[in-house]
């Protein structure tokens, strides 16, 4: 009887000890706002967004004890300024290079997100829930967030695209110990 009476408390203490590390953790939202409005036009060199998460305090507070990337989103208003429907994609370039051509983006980068369909001369507001379903290159972004936190993002579309992004941002939820 006495043995049994001590079993549960002992199991509880053992579980607490085993769980100690991961119990002292949490989920923290890190967001990086893109310049707004951001004009993106097809041409020789493209406009890339220089993302440096090290400038974000929430990232700096947790990057040393970062364990998991829990959630990702690329949100904002995506306007297609052309008279033809656009298929919008975001590409990540781990080397953080800017002013690349489309061919260079595709050679050096990885497709991160999309496609997002936008009708002629229309705006699509992408919310957090919708955006999370559009990621196709999660692992590359996760590696960058767990790495130096510095990369570039190019938002492109098919054909002779002309896009305007308003209030766009990259949202990352990190799991980190305290």
């Amino acid at each position, binding site marked *: *009887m006495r043995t*049994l*009476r001590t*079993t*549960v*408390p002992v*199991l*509880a203490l053992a*579980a*607490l000890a085993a*769980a100690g*590390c*991961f*119990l002292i*953790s*949490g*989920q*923290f*939202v890190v*967001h990086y*706002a893109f310049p*707004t409005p951001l004009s993106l036009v097809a041409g020789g060199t493209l406009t890339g967004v220089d993302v440096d998460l090290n400038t974000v305090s929430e990232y700096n507070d947790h990057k040393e004890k970062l*364990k*998991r990337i*829990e*959630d*990702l*989103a690329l*949100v904002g208003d995506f306007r297609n300024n052309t008279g033809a429907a656009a298929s919008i994609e975001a590409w990540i370039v781990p080397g953080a290079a800017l002013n690349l051509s489309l061919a260079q983006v595709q050679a050096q980068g990885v497709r991160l997100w999309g496609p997002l369909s936008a009708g002629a001369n229309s705006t699509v507001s992408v*919310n*957090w*829930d*919708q*955006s*999370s*379903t*559009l*990621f196709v290159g999660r692992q590359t972004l996760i590696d960058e967030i767990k790495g130096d936190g510095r990369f570039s993002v190019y938002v492109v579309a098919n054909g002779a695209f002309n896009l305007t992004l308003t*209030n766009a*941002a990259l*949202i990352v*939820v990190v*799991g*980190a*110990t*305290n």
Partner: protein
Amino acid sequence: MRKFLLIVLAATTISTGAAQAASVGIGPFGGASIPIVQDDQGNGSVFGIRAPVQIVPLLRVEPFWSTSALGDKTVDVGGTSFTRAGSDVKTFGLNAMLSLGGPVTFYPFVGIGTVKFDRGGQDESFTSYHMGLGLGLSPIPKLSVDLRAELQAAAKDGASRKMGNITLGASYSVFSMP
């Protein structure tokens, strides 16, 4: 903290007088689920079913299944608000607890299981650890009513999502041996 532990220990010891015989019960429970240090989840509700099984005196095991609907969370990004839907959380596991006789019991418990978080763009399974305290009332034979406060930690890769669950449940003994 020391006072609290002493109270728990005293209540546990005092109510250990009458151990129960073998029995199998079943019953529903429900209450509130409160995310702890999760910037991307809001408060929600939890409901479930459990089947307490008395296998030996003083020790009870309890398979359970529960479903939680965590609340939405809104984050401000550069003056624009973005809302993430809360996860649907489904847990299946097994608790072990001291089983103390009498009309009023106070018991600690621990448990382990598997938990799945599901929302748009996110569908992940974790190992679920549980620990908490319960207050059991048995107003009539075979029926017990339980009020519990529980810490649930869904762990993966060295971090965990934690919820504080406060539930009220009832269970009815469908089989018992003297």
